[in-house]
């Protein structure tokens, strides 16, 4: 179980970081979402993974730490609100700036800079 869990968190974090480094707001927003999923899973595991553990004393032989569940819940709520905000902000930026690049303008593309001159010369 641990291995699968670790791989899930790792892959999600990797995808999240990769997408956050992209140039367009859509992929960055998706990346932030993935990053917050990875974080939630990670927080959940900070109380150690255990099966059939009860969160209330006296209910079972094995106990699970209830605090990470509370932390994860809080993190989910906050993360959700923040993602909602960034989606609206990205839409606003698309409208205000006229494109969906995080930097507000299309990066200079070396191909496009060279090609037009080639035909004319």
């Amino acid at each position, binding site marked *: 179980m641990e291995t699968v869990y670790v791989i899930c968190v790792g892959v999600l974090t990797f995808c999240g970081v990769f997408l956050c480094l992209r140039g367009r707001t859509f992929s960055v927003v998706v990346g932030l979402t993935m990053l917050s999923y990875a974080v939630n899973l990670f*927080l959940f595991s900070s109380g150690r993974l255990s099966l059939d553990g009860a969160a209330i004393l006296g209910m079972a032989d094995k106990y699970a730490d209830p605090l990470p569940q509370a*932390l994860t819940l809080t993190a989910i709520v906050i993360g959700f609100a*923040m993602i909602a905000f960034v989606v609206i902000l990205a839409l606003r930026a698309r409208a205000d700036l006229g494109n969906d690049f995080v930097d507000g303008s299309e990066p200079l593309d070396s191909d496009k800079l060279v090609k037009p001159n080639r035909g004319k010369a």
Partner: protein
Amino acid sequence: MTLHLAILPILIPMIGGLLMLLPPFAGPLRYQYRRAGALFLMLTQVAVSVYLMYVVVQNGAIMYAVGDWRPPFGIILYVDQLSAMLVALTGFLGLAITLYSFAGDDREGKYFHPMVQFLLVGICGAFLTNDLFNLFVFFEVLLIASYTLLIHGGGKQKTAANLHYVILNLVGSSLFLFALGTLYGITGTLNIADMAMRVTQLSEGNQLIAQAGGSLMLIVFGLKAAMLPLHFWLPQTYAVASAPVAAMFAIMTKVGVYCIFRVYTVIFGEQAGELADMIQPWIWPLAILSIVAGTIGALASPNLRTLAGNLVVVSVGTLLIAFALRTPEATAAGLLYLIHSTIITGALFLIADMLGQQRGKALDYFVIARKMKQQALLGVMFVVAAMAVAGLPPFAGFLGKLVVLQSATNTDYTAWVWSIILVSSLATIVALSRAGTTLFWRNTPSHDAAESPGISKWQLGGTGLLLIASPMLALFGASVIEYTNNAAVQLHDIPYLLEVMNLHGDAQ
């Protein structure tokens, strides 16, 4: 009242801010009610925080268990002299910018005053809490308020800067949670005092993990504090924000600095065994490079607001030097400098805005433009702010820098600290005098200044409040230094903290 005094600086702006969203205050036409409400809340906040400071000085630090859940299990608010001082500083700055915004900035959007109140909730909460996860929550509160405040007024530039700011801080929040999860997984607690006790008992393998978690947290705090290399967002963000917002943001970098002081003094301080002072080797070069980068940025700035933003980076670097020295004296010096630099950089943003309003399209850019209507008044304010921020004698900036320099004598780094701080001060003076020369003396002769708007009494009041604070700090320098000294000693005194929290090393 006194029983719940510790939580009042959080409750007042929270309840007040929520009430201001309701009918008697809501709506575009009722801005007068909102102004009255905001002023009332700010005055109450200042009064309560000053009283809190007084109580803490008289009776020692306060431990407030929210919901009466005892440490280490519940969420704890811990008010020592340091937190009380910073809460009072936040309230004071909030009062000044609220006064300033009455001139018209608050009418550019409907929710300016409620949002400032929510920002205060977050900032005061971050200063008061003694629980790492709670710190995260208050960070998010202050961040979401700052996102909306930053875009207040609207416009292309603000949207672009805000997008960067939001994305950076969301990544920062994720990192914060990763760090929290790591530390909680290893120590099994989120209470800062309890964690300070637990990190000494870790096995060797776990120490490495705790070190990773602690270092990850430095990235988060560094991002908030605009420490090099995480400072690139700051000058642009502060330059596009509307003036009262930018001035209020002057305290937000200090939240990051405060967290560095708190976490790395209490948890990873000198009593932490193997992990003692683990980030200190990192802080030294970063602090010095922050000052260098901020100074170069100040010299290269095209307008006054960007210059002020770069001076914020310089002040953060100076504060980090005070942190890196790791003595109570140095911390005390840093705290003195912190109060002063927050107030004065805030005032600089306000002055830049007033200048801009009287220079037509040139705004506060360093170009030749028409003569200002109230040249003399603005000039005096600019000179006072410039001298204070550069650290020239009659103002508290001089005192702050002097004390930082003094505390750095007889250490291995004396030469570094002295040369960097003094050279950076000189460069700041050069940058500011260049700025002032262009802004005030290089005018186009033809234009008539009469049509530009005069400074309103609110703007004058808000800025004046901040500017007067600087000579006041110098005038009452002895008692301020005594206070920051006590605050620093209290911060470094971990056994005292454990005693207030009623935590003991042997209790498991």
